[in-house]
């Protein structure tokens, strides 16, 4: 009953045909925390490099401070002086590629576009996260205005399932415009905010994005994630943790119709056919602060995306 009403309300709020469609991320507990069980296929999602955000602000968000208060807490916040300002890590890029790959696989037709100011995206590295080079159209233009224009063109064209754009901070008007374009064209936009090359981070201002994520790479410490070795055994052979397995701390800072959350995603080692196994640790708000996790309610899920499954069939 409640669900039906909610669906009705959602349909009223959004024009566009398949506006209510959601695409699961393939990361069990994360999907469970999202409204409808996945990312909205028509809408704007924001992913920020964690280096951009002051840790305190992220914590405040997780502690339940309303989103608007964080947005206006200040336009600029100094980065913690522990070397984070050295630049980003690739975690945000990887998560954006993963989300884009899922959205693309879920759409029957349409392509994926990656709009960037520079040419440092490396397609072979994205394959692991489910984005094949041939599916991806690269658009490079240094000016922010041109990137916003290109993104809006892509969203409105109806020919694109998902467009990722590397942007600096944009204002509320531009964000709302993008959201309308995404609904009109039935496409998803992923705004990727990178930290590279900035001495000070811009705290993301208010925006009409449906979800906002912060992604950080964290050390694969067995005491924290407790999943290090298990992946290897599940895969049928003992794989020692090398520098292969990424571990992300995934913060859902804001979510329309949903609640913020925090997960750890452990990519573990790769299986030969290229299927990535992600292990997701369910949200435990005090785990990190306490430095120890009593009983990690972890779930392991095979994030078998389309390309990987093909790889298996071929093998």
């Amino acid at each position, binding site marked *: 009953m409640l669900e039906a009403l909610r669906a009705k309300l959602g349909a009223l709020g959004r024009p566009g045909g398949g506006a209510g469609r959601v695409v699961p991320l393939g990361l069990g507990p994360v999907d469970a925390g999202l409204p409808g069980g996945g990312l909205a296929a028509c809408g704007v999602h924001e992913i920020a490099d964690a280096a951009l955000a002051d840790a305190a602000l992220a914590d405040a968000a997780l502690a339940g401070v309303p989103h608007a208060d964080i947005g206006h807490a200040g336009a600029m916040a100094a980065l913690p002086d522990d070397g984070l300002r050295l630049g980003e890590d690739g975690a945000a*890029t990887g998560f954006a590629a993963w989300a884009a790959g899922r959205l693309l696989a879920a759409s029957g037709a349409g392509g994926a576009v990656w709009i960037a100011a520079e040419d440092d995206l*490396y397609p*072979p590295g994205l394959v692991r996260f489910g984005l*094949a080079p041939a599916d991806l159209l690269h658009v490079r233009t240094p000016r922010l205005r041109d990137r916003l224009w290109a993104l809006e063109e892509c969203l409105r064209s109806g*020919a694109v399932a998902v467009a990722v754009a590397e942007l600096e901070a944009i204002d509320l008007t531009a964000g709302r415009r993008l959201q309308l374009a995404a609904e009109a064209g039935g496409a998803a936009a992923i705004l990727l905010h990178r930290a590279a090359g900035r001495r000070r981070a811009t705290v993301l201002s208010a925006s009409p994005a449906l979800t906002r994520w912060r992604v950080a790479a964290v050390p694969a410490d067995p005491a924290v994630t407790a999943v290090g070795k298990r992946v290897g055994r599940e895969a049928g052979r003992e794989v020692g943790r090398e520098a292969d397995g990424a571990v992300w701390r995934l913060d859902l800072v804001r979510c329309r119709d949903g609640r913020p959350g925090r997960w750890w995603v452990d990519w573990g080692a790769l299986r030969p056919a290229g299927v990535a196994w992600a292990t997701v640790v369910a949200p435990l708000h005090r785990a990190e602060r306490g430095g120890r996790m009593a009983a990690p309610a972890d779930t392991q899920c095979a994030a078998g995306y389309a390309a990987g499954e093909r790889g298996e069939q071929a093998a």
Partner: protein
Amino acid sequence: MASATRCLAVWLPALAIEGCRRDAVGVSQALPAGPLALTEGLRGRIVLTAVDAMAAAAGLTPGLPLAEARAIVPDLVTRSARPDRDAARLAALADWCERYSPLVGVTGAPAAGEGGVLIDIAGSAHLFGGEAALLDDLVDRLGRFGHAARAAVAGTPAAAWAVARVGPGHATPGWRAAAADIARAIVPAGSEAAALAALPLEGLRLGSAAVAALGRVGIRRIGELAGLPRAALARRYGEAVVTRLDQALGRRGEPISPRRPVPRFAARMVFAEPIGRSEDVAAALDRLLARLCRDLAEAGLGARGVDLTLFRVDGLAHRCQVGTVRPVDRAGHLARLLALHLDGLDAGFGFDAMALAAPAVESMAAVQGELVVADACAPARPVSTPLAELVDRLANRLGTAAVRRRLPRQSHLPDRAVADRPALAAPGAAPGASPGAAPDASLPAAWPVSWPDGWAERPVRLLARPQPLDAVAPVPDDPPVLLRREGHSHRILRAAGPERLSPEWWLAPERGDLAARTRDYYRVEDAAGRRFWVVRVGGHAMGRPARWYLHGLFA
């Protein structure tokens, strides 16, 4: 044949002087009033190349040494000649002349006062109310731009040129001020011989030696030449004399060599009053596009791009070109592409004509149905028409280089392992077809279905310019335990490697080069969990000091 073409020739005798005066407008050092001449150094002397009306009236002629000219006219103003500027101006005027017809050629050397434009008006005179009206319109407009011009219409380019160049009154210094009909003439079809009979031989564009030789035997008019036996004429004075005569009289064809290829599909529109508002331009463009696309559709063809030329009343021609990745015959799509260029266009005092042309057309049959990109390790996603149109819009605003796919190619070096490819495959390339025409042989015909093993170990970001690092490694050839970058330290907790990558042998002709260019890559993870791809060049095994760089970021 002679009656099939009608050619308009315009002679611009004073283009160099007019160009000099035009340049001086609005410059701080204005030209002093008085007779003006252009000069250039010729065999150690300075001679005049062009003179204005005042100087000509005082008796100066081109070719006179400057010293003599100064003796005749002490207050002569001189400027150095600029043949490049004159040629550019003539080319610009020829572009502008395309408002009358798409077939426009230039002739003669503008700096020497011989510059002119040839226009084939056979099919377009009626658009301007007949040949006389077109001629008047052209000469009047050129006069308003500040160019004195003599023009003539005849059945052949050579005849039109002869009448314009040496027709009645051409030697009168004040002909410009004289009756207007002196400067314009129309030779009715078929009467070229009669019109040319009384004209001097110079009008035939013969070499000066041939004119002088004929003059010695008393032949000074074209009519006198026409009565002579042809074989003897060719034997004594050269083949060119007969050829030029035949061309003038229409016995031998002479094509106008156009400045630009004349498109098969074109549409043009001339307005009674100049238009300047962008809505008006858009409305006119819609009508032109509708006409062009109707013609294309009837022929079963699509345009691979269109050129729009907007003719401003002050003699400038704006040209906008858009390209498409596939043949297109949909007016709406072309209008959206052209609209990107019309934004912020300077209309000046308005446009009085527009021309639209499709320079390259292809069969639409190739596009019917869905094309498929011959692709990498992905399902062949059909390239829908909306996607092709999106690529057109992006490429036309951002440049074709800004929109592409980046596909793997077979190379060990990571920076060479990705190649830029066009956003869409060429039409007609069926999936699985052998890419025999592919320019790059290193591109495999079909991408492997399973991924190369190494790709799992590739970063998501590859820095275009690797950043130098200080690294501490306990043992040579071991992974580093500490990295320093921009004054910050990274303690490395995990590392994997080295992965030794060398350039292909044909890229390093000598053995020593190969060793020097070999790189050792390490995947490292620092205490904060950030994962880098660092590379060592040189080192213990290479016998030279090791240098470290940050080359990539892992997710």
